[in-house]
């Protein structure tokens, strides 16, 4: 079971804030965040690194799905 957050089209730093909030509050071991630009993708990868989590990126058309696993 994983949670998918749709953060496409949101300005900085909202995708990261949404992911951080979910990481802090959710008990899920996996979190997926969908974003539509490389800046948000990179910010999420940095958040995962800072939080000591693993992160993988897959492309979905022009969007990216960042999977954060703790």
């Amino acid at each position, binding site marked *: *079971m*994983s*949670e*998918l*957050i*749709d*953060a*496409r*089209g*949101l*300005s*900085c*730093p*909202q995708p*990261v*804030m*949404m992911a*951080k*909030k*979910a990481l802090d509050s959710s008990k899920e071991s996996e979190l997926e965040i969908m974003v*539509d*630009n*490389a*800046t948000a993708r*990179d910010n999420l990868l*940095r*958040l995962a690194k*800072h939080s000591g989590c693993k992160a993988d990126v897959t492309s979905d058309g*022009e969007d990216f799905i960042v999977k954060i696993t703790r």
Partner: protein
Amino acid sequence: MFRNKSVLITGGVIGALSVILTVFGNPANMGICVACFIRDIAGALGLHRAEVVQYLRPEIPGFILGAFIISVFAGEFRTRGGSAPLTRFFIGFFVMIGALVFLGCPLRMVLRLASGDLNALVGFLGFAVGIYAGLQWLKKGFSLGRSYKIEKGNGYILPLFAVALIIFALISPSFIFHSTKGPGSMSAPFILSLGVGLLVGILAQRSRICMAGGLRDVFLMKDFHLFSGFITIFAVALVFNFIFGNFRLGFTGQPIAHSDGLWNFLGMFLAGYGSVLLGGCPLRQCILAGEGDTDAAVTFLGMLLGAAFSHNFGLASSAEGVTAGGQVSVIIGIILLTGLAYLNIAKSFSSNKKRR
């Protein structure tokens, strides 16, 4: 890995080239200033008639086109729009008002600091507090909403406007104004300014450097990644200012600056506050506009109008000091942005979540 270093490289290049542009003729501590240069462009287009600040600065179209070219090559050019464009226009307008009361965008603030102008330290404090204040709204759920993918042609408009500005600068038609005295008359050679603009546009697009984002991420996540670019600009410009003998520590007699502490603080407070609500500083808006973000392009136009208003209605400061109109506008700007922030608190992000 490159991404981590690219922000340092970008900061270093901006710091060095900013001082070099002043050596080649740009006004003091104004190697690069997004606010001042947009103001000069507004003047050159006749949108305001302040005779000392009219010049089609090639650096700005350089930023936009550098970001456009590299984002096309890197596959990152994405045409998008629809995230509260009018609100962004309005915020961009007031970011410019605040910056011109202080006399510089966040980037020039760092450059002024690196030449020993302590008024910029007061401005920096205001900027930091403004970012912190804006961040509180983001934590409460402030959002200007989503942007959506739109047809590519929409994303070409601002880059084409940048091309038009370069053509006007080259052929100087009679309707383009060019200062014969004051800061607008001082400039590095056209080709050097354009080259630096393009290079900075390319590097800023790759590194995502952002003066507002730097402090915001420090406050939000103790993440110093973007802020390291901010520090590098300062450090490298400081070294270059020492080399070229530009460093002079103090509050008074600083070039194109005033020493009214309260309004240096509040002007940059407004610039920082608005930049956080927009999601990026004035430089970042130019870069995003080059990447196809039409909301950032609208913000750019808001900044252009803000600059025109600033000089049409005597709101901008000068070395002589701050004007009454400037003071009133900054206060109105802070109040209006606060109201806007309150009215744009999204009810819930829960609709963004799905389980699967």
